[in-house]
């Protein structure tokens, strides 16, 4: 532990690493199913705000807030997913970005909106300043437990009929449908699970960082979550966890170079997507990279070159 602390991994950093791993897993679910959804920050915001209102205004314990936040996000995900998941790749990405922005703006203006509707002064989300003074009640063991349970569910999911269908949809949606898979059902269910997982991370993180504001859940947050999954890779559940850990810990370890933090993040994202497309947790990707460094084209690349010149 002392060693970790000496390189900058304090308890709060470790806790944030765990939270970000959960966020990485939430986008992993949809990516694994071939859906390029960027709604995670929006669902995270829903979870965080519902959770904090439950602990602050209704004095509920953290576990109840967690469940409340997850249910709220799950309920919102149903009417969003049904129409939106008919869209594909870039169209889906843009639509879900739009959704995230609408959520953020609604939270920003919730109090004025609610006040004008109910006719009395409502102070719940507190606008752009957000909610402050949230007690820090999320503990490391809870985060660890939550992550372990999530991973267990994922592992069993992959070994189930449902999990196989997810992978099939990613590879060829039409072929999957003609193999008897209800594509609409699977996609929507995964979308809801992804929303619930993002919301849980939102609740847990809000009770770590002690303040939340709408600005925390904008496009930047989506990009961060996406970066966790892309850096780690989405071929297994381990990828997003590693990605979340690395991207959270690295800036702390490199804190002497604080002003270059953003540049490093950008370079990492670029280099990984260009040179290591399967992410850090992907043996084939490393092998390919190694061959490239040593200047030997892989078999596949050789074939591609031959067909191109021929």
């Amino acid at each position: 532990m002392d060693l970790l602390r000496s390189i900058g991994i304090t308890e709060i950093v470790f806790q944030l690493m765990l939270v970000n791993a959960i966020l990485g897993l939430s986008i992993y679910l949809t990516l694994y199913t071939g859906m390029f959804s960027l709604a995670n920050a929006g669902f995270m915001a829903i979870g965080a705000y519902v959770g904090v209102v439950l602990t602050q205004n209704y004095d509920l314990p953290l576990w109840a807030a967690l469940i409340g936040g997850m249910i709220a996000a799950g309920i919102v995900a149903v009417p969003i997913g049904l129409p939106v998941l008919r869209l594909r790749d870039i169209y889906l990405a843009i639509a879900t970005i739009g959704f995230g922005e609408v959520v953020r703006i609604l939270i920003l203006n919730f109090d004025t909106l609610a006040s004008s509707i109910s006719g009395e002064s409502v102070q719940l989300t507190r606008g752009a300043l957000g909610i402050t003074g949230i007690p820090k009640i999320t503990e490391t063991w809870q985060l660890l437990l939550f992550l372990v349970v999530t991973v267990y569910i994922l592992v069993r999911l992959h070994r189930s009929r449902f999990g196989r269908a997810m992978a099939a949809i990613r590879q060829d949606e039409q072929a999957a449908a003609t193999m008897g898979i209800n594509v609409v059902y699977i996609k929507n269910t995964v979308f809801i699970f992804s929303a619930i997982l993002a919301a849980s991370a939102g609740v847990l993180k809000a009770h770590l960082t002690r303040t939340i504001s709408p600005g925390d859940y904008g496009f930047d947050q989506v990009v961060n979550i996406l970066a966790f999954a892309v850096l780690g890779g989405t071929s297994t559940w381990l990828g997003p966890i590693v990605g979340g850990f690395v991207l959270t810990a690295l800036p702390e370890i490199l804190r002497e170079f604080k002003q270059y933090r953003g540049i490093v993040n950008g370079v990492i994202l670029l280099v990984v997507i260009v040179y290591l497309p399967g992410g850090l947790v992907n043996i084939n990707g490393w092998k390919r990279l190694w061959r490239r460094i040593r200047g030997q084209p892989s078999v596949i690349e050789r074939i591609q070159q031959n067909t191109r010149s021929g």
Partner: protein
Amino acid sequence: MLELKKVSRLFGGLQALHQVDMRVPEGRIVGLIGPNGAGKTTLINNISGLDHPTSGTIHFEGREIHNLPPHRITGLGIARTYQNIRLFGEMTVLENLLISQHGRGRATVFDSLVFTPRFRAEERRLKNVALQLLERFQLGGMAHLLAGNLPYGDQRRLEMARALATGPKLLLLDEPTAGMNPIETEQLGQQILRLRDEQLTVLVIEHDMSLIHQVCDEIYVLNFGQIIAHGAPDVIKHNPQVIEAYLGQEEDTELESERERS
């Protein structure tokens, strides 16, 4: 068993199918031939639910199916293969066959979480079916290879095994011998005849006339989206309209492959 009545499909201004009437009786092997671009694949897509007719009806065992989504149609007992092999290439051969039994399983994610007996029994059952199919299609021993890394001929046979794994009553084969040599084609013909012996009904789209003559009981000829002839293989062979339709074939090849890519 399968009955199409006045099925038409318009893409924008293009009439891909026009008033197609067709019957596939139970237990028969029916061939569908026609030059490239005639609308054969569009027809198969409409039967399997990937596409829906602009007008007309499709009935399967007396049920209206032309508005159903593909997985429901598969569930009713219609399976298909693809002309341009569409295996799940990143998965193993075995996983490909497990996935196509999706509709035959009942276990939920929860069953998987706590290892219920139902889950374990079902996984065993699905795996057994898969292994039997592998043996039958000479793919034994390849269960754990990635489907995308198989040689072409093996991929073709796996494509067919995968369709069979859905447990169909009617099998739609979209050019199953594309890219095969005469010996492989002949062997595949034997496989198809064996399917009929097992009470399966087959609709096969083909270019290879030798296969059509080897297996088909009756043939439909499609040209420019319309059925221009129907009858026994020997009769069709000498139909002047059919011969004429096939003469202009070569020029259209480019167009068809271009359309399929887009």
